[in-house]
């Protein structure tokens, strides 16, 4: 139990820090799943003496969530699903509930179920983000009034409080989810029969396809590009990947420098 408490507090701290990075401060992109998830896995694995296993789980989760939410951006009023918290919680729930299992497949089932659960938690995180932004709006009105009254100290205080709200939101949310969520998750995954459980490993292998679809939707702009793209996939399927990676790059250069008559 004390180990679980330590882990919950650690996850809450990591959650708070990466959530600050996602919009409020820095924006170094520590909050991107491909960074946040391995980071969580590394620190969490350290507590249980399995840092490498934690890091590998983090990479797996990071890859899938990075792809899934690659197009979600915090632009203007748009509040995207909280990918940072989803990454942290997915690794935390999956690792803590799965690390004590002996068999590979049981651990993988825990990881995959936690991953799917964290997607829903990312949506809940978005609602909490919107709540914090509403709090900040009240804060903004208060600061404006104070500045009008010549109380200039309110600027730094109000601005800092906004960051404090963000951190506290993520800290409390992560702590509660990990503290209360691990046991039900363990119970659920143990209740799955081996056959159904192994099906989740197949799901895990297919999930990157969704992210690739989202990314393909982003980068493909014309029919011509789609033809090149499908040709590239078939080429990469049939022949050694590294060779074709180089050739693909060469094709892009050729496409970029095609004669003016071919350009539309």
């Amino acid at each position: 139990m004390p180990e679980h408490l330590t882990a919950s507090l650690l996850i809450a701290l990591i959650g708070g820090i990466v959530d600050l990075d996602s919009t409020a401060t820095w924006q170094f992109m520590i909050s991107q799943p491909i960074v946040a998830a391995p980071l969580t896995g590394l620190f969490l694995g350290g507590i249980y003496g399995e840092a490498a296993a934690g890091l590998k789980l983090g990479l797996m989760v990071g890859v899938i969530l990075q792809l899934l939410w690659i197009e979600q951006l915090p632009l203007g009023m748009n509040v995207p699903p909280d990918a940072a918290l989803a990454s942290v919680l997915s690794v935390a729930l999956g690792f803590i509930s799965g690390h004590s299992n002996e068999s590979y497949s049981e651990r993988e089932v825990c990881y995959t179920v936690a991953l799917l659960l964290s997607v829903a938690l990312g949506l809940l995180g978005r609602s909490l983000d919107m709540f914090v932004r509403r709090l900040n709006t009240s804060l903004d009105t208060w600061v404006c009034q104070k500045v009008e009254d010549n109380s200039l100290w309110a600027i730094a205080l109000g601005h800092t409080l906004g960051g404090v709200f963000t951190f506290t939101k993520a800290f409390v949310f992560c702590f509660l989810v990990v503290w209360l969520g691990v046991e039900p998750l363990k119970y659920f995954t143990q209740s799955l029969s081996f056959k159904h459980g192994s099906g989740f490993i197949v799901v895990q292998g297919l999930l990157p396809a969704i992210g690739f679809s989202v990314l393909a939707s982003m980068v493909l702009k014309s029919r011509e590009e789609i033809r090149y793209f499908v040709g590239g996939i078939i080429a990469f399927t049939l022949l050694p990947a590294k060779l074709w990676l180089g050739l693909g790059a060469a094709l892009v250069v050729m496409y970029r420098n095609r004669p003016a008559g071919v350009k539309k």
Partner: protein
Amino acid sequence: MRALPRLLLARIAFRSFFLQSSWNYRGMMSMGFLYSIRPGIDQLHSPGPAREAAYMRHLEYFNTNPYFASVVMGVTLALEERLSHGEIGEEVIHDTKEGLMTACAAIGDGLFWDSWRPFVAVVALIFAFGNYLLTPLIFLVLYNLPHLYFRFAGIFWGYREGTHVIKTLRQFQFPQIRQNLRLGTMVLLAYLIPNHVNVHTPFLLTNLPLEYFYFGEKVVQGLGALLLVTLGTVAYRARVDVLLISFLLMVCALVLYHWGILI
């Protein structure tokens, strides 16, 4: 002789890391903008009505790309300096800031969110699929090189060149950079799709001679991945929510697994 020393400008660029701490639905980044440029304002305006007016001026609506915000800050401070000398009126600052924040939002969002981040993510994914444990570090270093460059250089450009800063930004030819990044992402994606979507079926084991098994497995995996990605792309472009697509994929995969079609 300019009023603001380089060290102070660097300090303002550093404070811009906290630009969005108090992001809200009224002024958006307004409080963060004022918080960031406050040392400059304090240097340019002596205590009294002029300084208070400057504070109030910058508590109005502000929203732009966070990495390019320092450009707007530099220009704003250059204009505040001219205002303090009585060369321009308040409305010039208001209008310039509004125009510039829109331009910087368009440039920054297009470059960083739409092009650079997906490209760096795909590069990192290639390392991650290879279980390379330093992947997060590669992502962070690669992503933040241009981020830090624009954040710190931007404030100096803005302050030095004022409203002419747009000319400096134009020199970068951002549309061309974005186009190249998009094509680069496309090539890497074409490599990732057939190699990292795991589609395995037991039929090959039973129906193919062993010497063709490896080739058959590659073809099934590649074409299966292509089919899945095509379906996913069609659904996504038809505005089906990505979570619903994931859920449908999960259900289909579990059913196919149950029937013994996928392993």
